[in-house]
């Protein structure tokens, strides 16, 4: 029988040193009786020092040190012995911790869970009270009664959190002191002080006010904040009254009945920033600005797409633009930003246009469909091609953009745009590069949608297709000049 005796502070390090020796000598866990300094050892216990110095390091899996650290503080020493039992067995069965059904592992995890809860509750329920400190550094004390010997494990949290003040947390067995940024633990008997703090009244007011009496569930409260903690929680003094009065407070609300909705006239003038904006007239020949058309489009419900999209993404560019580029529909990013061509495909388009020397101030960009159509896959919105009915419904807006901008040339990018502009979107790859006519008689250059370029997996093919796309764009200047002549 060997009976290691560990210090109250520094328990983990001492356990580790002892366990190394014992495990190296393959001492049977049944032959070890763990305890703390000051506790009586069995009469015939052999001194730990009789065991040889361990010659090689113990091998443990990566998960073990954390588990051991959590087991050591267990009050009855079952944690100390379980941790040793595990460490010894790991020397011959290096993977057995992964079997949570193993009775020893299950026991260790059960203990560890209780310790973790104890530490967590200490972090939660310590209540500091202010003492007279120095003018430049405030001083606080607290009293806490943990179930297990968790002071060492729990202390760093407070040091991280309350770095700019001095404080002491006393438990019945240990004092944790933090002075000028230095943390120190001393084994020391303590008793519960009887003192208050000037903020406790305000805190209790808050505690009572944030409670909703219509949702009274005292069992749920006690499950998480058991009564044993209450005597050190200033707010807990309010609990009995809060529970006792909850029913009558709710009954009062019922009895008081309803306040009739104030008549509109009593509500006073509508606040300045919520005044209804008058929708712009849907008059194709009225003197509207593009902004007004965009404003009326923002409330569009002409097809069902509005119900899942964030917002209408209207076209953008000067009214004097000589070219109008038309794409398919806004994507995820455009839907969030409310602006066309700001996503990956838009970036591709902008880069290509810049490379062939098309000036941003000279063109107008828009889409055939102005709401984002998608399906949800998990947490991602996956683009879906709009249906013909949606394209037709949205043509209302595209036609108004064409009328108002009155471009010399329209560029249809992709099948959907081609369909919207010419009434037929079939065979885009055969028709690309050609100049056709829009339904309202404008010259219309046909090309692919920039997202097509992004989707090509083969790098060489993609480079070739980007060049073809840029070749299409390069014709824009000439075509505009021709159309103007």
């Amino acid at each position, binding site marked *: 029988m060997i009976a290691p005796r560990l210090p109250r502070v520094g328990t983990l390090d001492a356990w580790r040193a002892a366990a190394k020796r014992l495990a190296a000598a393959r001492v049977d866990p049944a032959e070890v009786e763990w305890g703390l300094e000051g506790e009586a050892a069995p009469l015939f216990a052999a001194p730990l020092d009789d065991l040889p110095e361990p010659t090689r390091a113990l091998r443990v899996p990566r998960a073990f040190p954390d588990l051991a650290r959590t087991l050591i503080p267990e009050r009855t020493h079952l944690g100390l012995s379980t941790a040793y039992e595990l460490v010894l067995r790991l020397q011959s069965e290096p993977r057995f911790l992964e079997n949570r059904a193993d009775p020893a592992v299950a026991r260790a995890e059960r203990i560890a869970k209780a310790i973790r809860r104890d530490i967590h509750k200490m972090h939660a329920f310590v209540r500091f009270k202010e003492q007279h400190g120095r003018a430049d550094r405030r001083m606080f004390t607290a009293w806490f009664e943990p179930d297990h010997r968790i002071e060492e494990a729990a202390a760093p949290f407070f040091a991280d959190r309350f770095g700019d003040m001095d404080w002491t947390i006393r438990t019945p067995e240990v004092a944790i002191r933090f002075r000028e940024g230095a943390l120190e633990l001393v084994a020391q008997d303590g008793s519960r002080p009887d003192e208050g703090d000037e903020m406790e009244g305000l805190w209790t007011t808050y505690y009572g006010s944030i409670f909703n009496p219509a949702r009274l569930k005292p069992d749920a409260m006690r499950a998480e904040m058991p009564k044993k903690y209450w005597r050190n929680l200033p707010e807990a003094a309010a609990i009995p009254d809060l529970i006792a009065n909850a029913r009558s407070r709710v009954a009062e609300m019922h009895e008081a009945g309803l306040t009739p*909705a104030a008549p509109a006239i009593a509500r006073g003038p509508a606040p300045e920033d919520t005044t209804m904006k008058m929708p712009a007239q849907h008059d194709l020949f009225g003197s509207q600005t593009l902004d007004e058309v965009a404003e009326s489009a923002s409330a569009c419900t002409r097809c069902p797409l509005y119900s899942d999209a964030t917002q209408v993404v209207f076209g953008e560019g000067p009214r004097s633009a000589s070219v109008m580029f038309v794409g398919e529909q806004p994507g995820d990013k455009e839907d969030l930003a409310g602006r066309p061509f700001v996503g990956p495909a838009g970036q591709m388009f902008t880069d290509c246009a810049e490379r062939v020397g098309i000036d941003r101030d000279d063109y107008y960009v828009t889409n055939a469909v102005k709401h984002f159509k998608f399906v949800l896959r998990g947490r991602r919105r996956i683009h879906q091609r709009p249906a013909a009915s949606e394209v037709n419904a949205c043509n209302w807006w595209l036609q108004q953009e064409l009328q108002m901008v009155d471009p010399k040339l329209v560029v249809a990018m992709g099948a959907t745009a081609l369909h919207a502009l010419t009434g037929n979107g079939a065979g885009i790859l055969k028709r690309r590069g050609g100049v056709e006519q829009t339904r309202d008689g404008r010259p219309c250059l046909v090309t692919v949608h920039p997202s097509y370029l992004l989707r090509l997996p083969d790098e060489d093919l993609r480079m070739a297709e980007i060049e073809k796309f840029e070749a299409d764009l390069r014709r824009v200047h000439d075509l505009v000049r021709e159309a103007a002549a």
Partner: protein
Amino acid sequence: MGKMTLQQKLGILSDAAKYDASCSSSGGAKRDSRDGAGLGSTTGSGICHAYAPDGRCISLLKILMTNQCIFDCAYCINRRSSNVRRARFTVDEVVHLTTEFYRRNYIEGLFLSSGIIRSSDYTMEQMVLIVEKLRADGFRGYVHLKTIPDASPELIERAGRCADRLSINIELPQDRSIAELAPEKDGADIRKAMAGVRLLKDSADEPTFRGRRDRFAPAGQSTQMIVGADDSTDADVLGQSTRLYGAYGLKRVYYSAFSPIPDASAVLPLKDPPLMREHRLYQADWLLRYYEFGLDEITSAAPDGNLDLDVDPKLAWALSNRDRFPVDVNRADREALLRVPGFGSKIVDRIVKARRQVTLGLEDIRRMGGRVKAALPFVTARDHHPSGSLDAVDLRARYVKPKQMELFA
């Protein structure tokens, strides 16, 4: 009206804030004050410093800057037409309460919301000024800031720089209900604001060429939906959540059972909050986010559009998809195990690891923490082969607790 004490203001402005369900202080960057030059830390997983007798966690100082409001949302205690007493905190009062509560370890930080005064921008700026002062004073604890939908992008950006989490409440499951009950609010505007927050966060999270990221709401954004104030079904509620999670990358959607308020509006039901419904919605939300359930799977087990209040949504799904069971705990893949009533994702991880070493029986599953009783008809194990119990007509009834006398019936 005489000058109010701080205690009176705190009473009014926390009472006014309690209908916001969120009190989470989790997520986001880790910080500490070991350098001694500030106060506070964030650990990544929040702490509940107290529990109120309603069973809810108190983690943050949850207050309104003011409960004055120019809006008239029928479900809200602070609506313009309500007769509640009004108050407003000064910047210094909020900073004082937050830091002094924090120093005493009462809270993880601040959750600041507000009624709308003067204009959205004015209100947002006053709130941002409070948090900026708090940060300037060296406060490193957690801050959750409610953002006002119409506030300017510049203000939202300032809010994101000083707060850990931003939230904008969608309020109700359907735009129609918002228009009806919150006449000054607009569902589309609220979603646009969420989109704006997401874009700002996405661009801040994008590493620069030096690998640095900007700080913007490291704990992301969340929202809240009131349940039981309108006639929306659970399918409407979950449909809205799914859409919000997908589009705006929300961390959480909170469901808040509509609760009677003092001075309630005549247009709303004055009855007990549907707490069980709220609970089932959270369970369904969890299945959608962590158990790879599709919205259609959950709603298919809820034929009238509402979740079964007697059994949890996973069990409800299993009961109406019995052909998918029993599942062999020693062979089935992870996806199939996640569908078993009584097995959480942690248990499933443990099963998958442990069965590499041993063939599992029921006792093994119990030792790992699985709820064997719930799982029994739906699994086979080394020592368990349910015969016919899956076909039992009364299978559902076995799971339903007999109705107890209502405490306050």
